[in-house]
């Protein structure tokens, strides 16, 4: 285990609580509630001021957090790390865990894997504390996309008692004309709790790549 805060966890216990969420159930009938015990079993203190949310920037954001230690996405927490990239499901009348033959991501709503990520995202957002960042995609029409997990689940779980500010890091490539004035970002601002400070900064993809490739540079200037 590479993060010291997680040593208090018992992997075997985590596995059995995890299985309880979907074992013996129709894999299209697993609601987010099924994973509540799992979320409560994994103990890990959030590291304030380092939490990084993301939307439509999966690849670059994880390259960044993998190579540089300054920020943490959900997928860098213990629970997110364990489940990242995995597929699982149960079946009615069976107490086996399957990794093939599971419903595809888009096959159903109360999908065993989707429900996990929806609940984990909500929990990560609820725990967000201090100064929080969000890496959004400046190369698409609506960097703040209403149907995204960030917009539909995470933003309204931010707690102004724990969290101070949200900084949007808008990643663009050279030929994009998007800026922090983008209308979808105005929507984000409007949806954000009024007590939270909002910032936005524009960064090019190549600048992020430079930050990724220089492990000794400070993280501050990255954005």
């Amino acid at each position, binding site marked *: 285990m590479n993060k010291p805060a997680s040593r208090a966890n018992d992997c075997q216990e985590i596995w059995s609580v995890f299985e309880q969420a979907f074992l013996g159930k129709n894999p299209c009938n697993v609601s987010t509630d099924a994973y509540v015990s799992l979320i409560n079993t994994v103990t890990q203190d959030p590291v304030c001021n380092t939490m990084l949310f993301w939307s*439509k*920037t*999966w*690849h*670059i954001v994880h390259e960044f957090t993998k190579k540089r230690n300054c920020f943490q996405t959900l997928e860098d927490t213990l629970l997110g790390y364990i489940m990242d*990239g995995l*597929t699982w499901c149960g079946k009615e009348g069976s107490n086996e865990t*399957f*990794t*093939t*033959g599971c419903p*595809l*991501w*888009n*096959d159903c709503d109360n999908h065993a894997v989707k429900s996990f*990520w929806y609940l984990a995202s909500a929990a990560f957002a609820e725990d967000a504390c201090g100064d929080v960042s969000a890496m959004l*995609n400046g*190369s*698409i*029409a*609506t960097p703040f*996309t209403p*149907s*995204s*997990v960030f917009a539909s689940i995470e933003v309204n779980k931010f707690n102004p008692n724990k969290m101070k500010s949200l900084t949007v890091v808008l990643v663009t490539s050279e030929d994009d004309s998007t800026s922090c004035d983008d209308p979808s970002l105005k929507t984000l601002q409007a949806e954000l709790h009024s007590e939270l400070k909002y910032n936005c900064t524009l960064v090019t993809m190549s600048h992020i790549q430079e930050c990724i490739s220089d492990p000794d540079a400070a993280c501050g200037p990255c954005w």
Partner: protein
Amino acid sequence: MTLPKSFSPIKMSHMCRCFVIVLFCLDGLIAEMGTTPNLKHIVIGRCYSYMTLVSPNSSYDCENIWREFEQAVVRKSPCNVKVKDYGPMFRAVPQTLPCDKLLFWSKTRELIHNYAGATRRFWTLEDTLMGYMFNDLIWCGQKEKDRGFDYNSCPEWSTCVNHPVYSLWRQASENFAAAACGNVTVLLNGSIDNAFHRKSMFGSVELDSLNPRMVDHVNIKVLANLEGPFVESCSQGSIADLINVLEKRGFHWTCTDSDLTLMIFQCIQNPQQFSCLTYAKSLQHRDL
């Protein structure tokens, strides 16, 4: 993957991607084709080839992969090899893909592999170890289980509930699509009806496996044969159904007809074609 060259008089593409067309065109023909001769040598050889030459930083136990594959196929009757039977084999072939370089295709087989091969900017399923090993091959077990492969004939699609070849490609396609991230490109054929078909491997398995959390943008490219016919395009035909599905799921998308790079590739295969002559002329003038 396609059937061997002897079937090519009928212009078709990926055997598994084209269920509907296969049923119409090949009824009766597949039953005469059995397991590809020398299957074991080919699969294991390709595995070593991939590991040594194509992707030198990787390390796989080729003999073990073959064993798991063989077990999955011969232990069951020829029409009863399910996706989960290939589970142990897939576990023996884990591969991390450059997730933001994936290229999907439906009914554009020849072009896609020339394009991906030459530009090396994209990966198709056939560029992954799994796809590389099994591309163009046919296999099935014998009616009596545990008697090995049947080299005389393999079942027709239409009679097969769990066809051994289809099940493998289905899982491989699902894994491939589920791994995709960032920008994804799909190449569709503008010279046929139903370029986008919900029954094709792309239209069913791959599209439904694309994860909206990981994939930001789907680039649809519709390409017709240079000489036509020009049946479908971004604004005409089944592509609209694809766009509908993408929008409903929250994917961003763009659609292009007549991508220049792809047209140039088509011209490479047929430089005398009328529309290619303009390119030829401009290249000749560069000497002056």
